[in-house]
């Protein structure tokens, strides 16, 4: 009961500030929190990154290993992108099978990478229809303060950029690891996800947990290096006007450009 009252008070406070063009943490409406990217944090993985977006923190590891291709996709490597919120990241997360929120998070991060065609999967075939390279990108949220979508996305992209692909020879139709020889992953473009929240009539970029608690709706837009819009997911219990959706796409492009510059430094 109390939490309902407090949520209401918080929303009033946040809305008051928004009317003055301000946010609780002093940011402008279209301003992201500081983004810190560190790669190579898990040396045993083929690639890894630790990303802090404000107080939200994610660790992503990339594992690369031979696999069988999916049926009917024998000319492509495998790309699997997951995300989970560790129970130590948030007092409300319970261990166990993933909630629908976590499944959505993982699938939105996955689509951002898949739909931009960041990685040229055709270059990951070892023997057509039989053996391919699989890239597994697993993100773990270790501290949650809102906007897990972007934090996981940046960590996933950074981890891929930092990774090296082992070389495999083919012996008796089976891949055999060639020690000490690696290559960079075949990256074609850099996907950048930008998540925005609508509170009343205001659109804010990169919402914190407090802002998410009182937002009306949410949208995540992923753009590629060419400035195209490649993936989008609306969430939350209310909607957007068409004008707001136009505005969101523009914000996603302009904010995305800044982030992309950060990511390009990892290449």
């Amino acid at each position: 009961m109390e939490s309902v009252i407090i949520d209401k008070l918080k929303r009033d406070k946040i809305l008051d500030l928004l009317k003055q063009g301000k946010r609780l943490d002093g940011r402008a409406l279209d301003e992201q929190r500081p983004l810190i990217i560190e790669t190579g944090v898990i040396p045993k993985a083929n690639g890894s990154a630790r990303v802090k977006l404000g107080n939200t923190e994610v660790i992503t590891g990339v594992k690369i290993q031979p696999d069988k291709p999916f049926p009917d996709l024998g000319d492509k490597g495998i790309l699997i992108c997951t995300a989970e919120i560790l129970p130590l990241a948030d007092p409300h997360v319970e261990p166990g099978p993933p909630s629908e929120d976590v499944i959505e998070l993982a699938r939105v991060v996955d689509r951002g990478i898949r739909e931009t065609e960041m990685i040229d999967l055709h270059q990951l075939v070892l023997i057509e229809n039989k053996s391919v390279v699989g890239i597994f990108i697993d993100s773990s949220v270790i501290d949650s303060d809102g906007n897990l979508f972007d934090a996981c996305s940046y960590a996933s992209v950074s981890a891929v950029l930092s990774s090296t692909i082992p070389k495999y020879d083919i012996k008796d139709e089976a891949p055999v690891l060639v020690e000490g020889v690696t290559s960079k992953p075949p990256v074609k473009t850099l996907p950048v996800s930008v998540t925005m929240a609508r509170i009343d009539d205001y659109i804010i970029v990169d919402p914190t947990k407090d802002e998410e608690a009182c937002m009306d709706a949410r949208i995540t837009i992923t753009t590629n290096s060419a400035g195209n819009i490649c993936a989008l997911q609306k969430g939350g219990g209310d909607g957007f006007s068409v004008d707001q959706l136009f505005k969101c796409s523009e914000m996603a492009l302009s904010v995305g450009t800044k982030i992309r510059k950060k990511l390009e430094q990892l290449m």
Partner: protein
Amino acid sequence: MTQLMSEDGIRCDGRRVDQLRNISIRVGVLNNADGSAYIEFGKNKILAGVFGPRDVHPKHMANQDTGILRCRYHMSPFSVTERKNPAPSRREIEISKVLKEALQPALILKDFPRTVTDVFVEVLQADGGSRCAALDAAAVALADTGIPMRDLVSACAAGKVADRIVLDVNNEEDQEGQADMPVAIMPNSGKVTLMQLDGILTSEEYKTCLQTAIGGCRQVYEIQRRALIERYFESGVQ
């Protein structure tokens, strides 16, 4: 590979770029559900049944301050080319969430604290755009229960195929086309309550695509309206 568009702009199923597939909706098709609808949307065949507002079990999941909405989008094993495992996939769980969030703005759940309204959608045969068709049926099924609603919800996708923006992407276009953008609106307020995008669009195309989809939603709305009128104000149906 299928040729998705002829030189004079006719799509692989014979439609123009701005043309919907055939849609038919029947309301009140189930006896046990409090509200129900059946939609055929192209080759999609989808059933929606709603129970509620009703008591929540287990009770600790009830919310003192508002009613809750649950939604389950499920595909029959025989609905797709390769037999589908009946257990819900991650894709189905995500779509269930997206549909719930698309319907929620149309409901006034605060008026029904401690209750749940359950929307069950079964895709009997899947074609491109099944989530939009599911949503169209679910909104009508909700209306069929008599629960007060702010508005209906009408959904339709647009997309990019053979470098053109097209309305209502079918299965082949979804598989081999360039972009798919499912959209739902509340037709009276114009609010967009569902929107997703997979594929690559320029900024301009994005805007055109969204407006194309909304145009489709408005056409769907007319069909939904007619189905409800037929059910409630005309005789001898069902």
